[in-house]
């Protein structure tokens, strides 16, 4: 994973006064599954459309396999897109839809037939080859849309929220199918979604985008466990954000005052004494006890909600300041805590992150 397939160099996009994409630098490696993740309107789809060629960047460069594609229209770029609502041609059968790209490139007839058949098999749609799109369900149309793109063997496959219109169960199934397909084909996938769970499940790397700016790009685990900004910590999964102030730093740790108590965390770079910070702690890294924990600083709060959500218990503890803290514990720890009880909250400082505010 060293060869770069897509390179964005300082790409900006304006729509009139609106700055949609802000100075975006992004390297996509050959054969990787990279997801652009962000809330709607963050510029992720615009970025995808610029790579596909449907939009022109206002400034900056887009390189595809090392070549600047500014002058190339979409039909001359070696990328294919799976569109949000599939965009299958309604007047063509599944077979004709899949063969369209090859036909446009004047591929010999027998080769088209063979490759279309391969693509059909790949997405398990052989039985539907002669159907029209409107005779199929959303999930089936989705498969055809993927087949129509991959049959052209593009350098990069762009996927614009391709599972957005499917119901939850089918979406989960398609996530794995897409991931397996990508691994099998070795094609670079650039995937756009606002669904963080989808991004974490499928991707080799995730690029979190917020307000047109790249917040963080890393592996799903790193994004989840070591978010670099407050937005990423908040957007990916559930987290507790505590506002605090750095009161001391040493080579290995940083001390932060939170709600009047002092906590120590593994050293967070660039945090100087007196800095206002946020501490992000995942609910599953929190623990609560009835007794004051020994030798550890703890926050005191009252249990306001304690619900069983299947595999775990989810507890909401309200601090005297009104801040609500979410604690997730395995379901086996039943019977420990009652609603209305006063508890001490502690956390695994190794799994907590100190973020600049």
């Amino acid at each position, binding site marked *: 994973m060293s060869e770069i397939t897509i390179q964005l160099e300082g790409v900006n996009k304006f729509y009139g006064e609106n700055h949609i994409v802000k100075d975006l630098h992004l390297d996509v490696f050959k054969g990787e599954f990279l997801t652009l993740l962000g809330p709607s309107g963050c510029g992720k789809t615009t970025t995808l459309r610029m790579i*596909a*060629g*449907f939009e022109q960047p206002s400034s900056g460069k887009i390189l595809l396999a090392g070549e600047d594609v500014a002058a190339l*229209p*979409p*039909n*001359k770029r070696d*990328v*294919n*897109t799976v*569109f*949000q*609502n599939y*965009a*299958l*041609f*309604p*007047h063509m059968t599944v077979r004709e839809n899949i063969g*369209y*790209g090859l036909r*446009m*490139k004047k591929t010999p007839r027998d080769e088209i037939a063979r490759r279309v058949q391969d693509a059909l098999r790949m997405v398990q749609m052989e039985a539907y080859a002669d159907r*029209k799109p*409107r005779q199929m369900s959303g999930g089936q149309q989705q498969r055809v849309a993927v087949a*129509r*793109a991959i049959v*052209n063997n593009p350098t990069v496959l762009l996927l614009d929220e391709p599972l957005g219109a499917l119901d939850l169960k089918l979406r989960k199934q398609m996530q794995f199918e897409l991931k397996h397909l990508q691994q099998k084909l070795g094609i670079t996938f650039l995937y756009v979604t606002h669904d963080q769970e989808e991004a974490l499940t499928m991707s080799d790397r995730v690029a979190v985008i917020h307000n047109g700016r790249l917040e963080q790009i890393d592996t799903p685990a790193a994004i989840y466990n070591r978010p670099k900004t407050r937005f990423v910590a908040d957007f990916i999964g559930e987290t507790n954000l505590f506002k605090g102030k750095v009161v001391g730093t040493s080579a290995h740790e940083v001390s932060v005052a939170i709600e009047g108590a002092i906590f120590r965390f593994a050293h967070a770079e660039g945090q100087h004494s007196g800095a206002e910070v946020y501490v992000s702690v995942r609910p599953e890294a929190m623990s609560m006890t009835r007794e004051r924990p020994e030798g550890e600083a703890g926050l005191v709060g009252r249990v306001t909600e304690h619900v069983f959500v299947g595999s775990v218990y989810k507890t909401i503890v309200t601090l005297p300041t009104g801040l609500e803290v979410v604690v997730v514990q395995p379901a086996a720890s039943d019977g420990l805590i009652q609603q209305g009880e006063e508890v001490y909250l502690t956390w695994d400082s190794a799994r907590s992150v100190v973020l600049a505010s």
Partner: protein
Amino acid sequence: MKKTAVHKKGMLLPLLLPPAIWLFLFLFLPYLNLFSYSFWKPGPFDVVKEFTLHNYAKFFTATSSGSVPYHVLIDTVELALVVTVFTVILSFPLAYYLNFKVTRFKQTIYMLVIIPLWVSYIVRAYSWKIILGTNGILNSAFIWLGVTDHPLDIFLYSKVSVIIGMVHIYTPFVLMPIYTALEQIPRNLLEASKDLGAGRFQSFLHVVVPLALPGVIAGATFAFVLSMGDFLAPSLLGGPDSSTMIANIVQQQFGTSNNWPYGSAIGIVILVLVLAILELTGRAEKRFSALDTVAMRK
């Protein structure tokens, strides 16, 4: 969906009754009347109510002068086809341009094409007399340009002027369905086509045209059927003989010739022909309607 009041049987009948009565009185009865007349004999003052097939036979056999009346029907079909082809040729590029190229004055230009529909047919036909006549705008322009030194009378009162007039009058009817069909094409299909390597022309040929086809068929049907039954354009703009259309013959039978049974028989022949064409184009439209929105109109 929840059942609304209209779906209940009790409400349906009173709602359907007025249009049903209307259709019965003003469409079904007149056609029935026409149908009966076509099998009766013409008399000196009134029809003679005796069954005969003579009226139909007369239409398909040669007269003493050697001309066969139904040839006018064939000429009319030809003329209507020419008008249809020209209206489609004019409408399609305009509808395409309005849908895909114009952004600012889209509605204005569309209305400019549609507004003439509010102007009386006769006024529009007469305006062509002013343009094409011997002392008309076209001749004046030619003389001024030095193309000719005397006014030409080849423009007006010919097949050409009839075609020009009808093309002008029926173009809005063709533009509207084509415009609507093009408007309904999801734009992401064009992006998908581009994305899959199709150039502008390929996308046009493989995506735009097939999806606009139901609209083209609908528009062409309008133009064809309307110009087939037209008798004003040929009588106002047409020449003495060559540009007479079938509807003029029918009009003559009910007017100067005072042969209602013969006129009725021709009317029935035209009716059967037009219904057959409507059935065919209706099927073709269904066959080619691929978009869900179009399909739902079935």
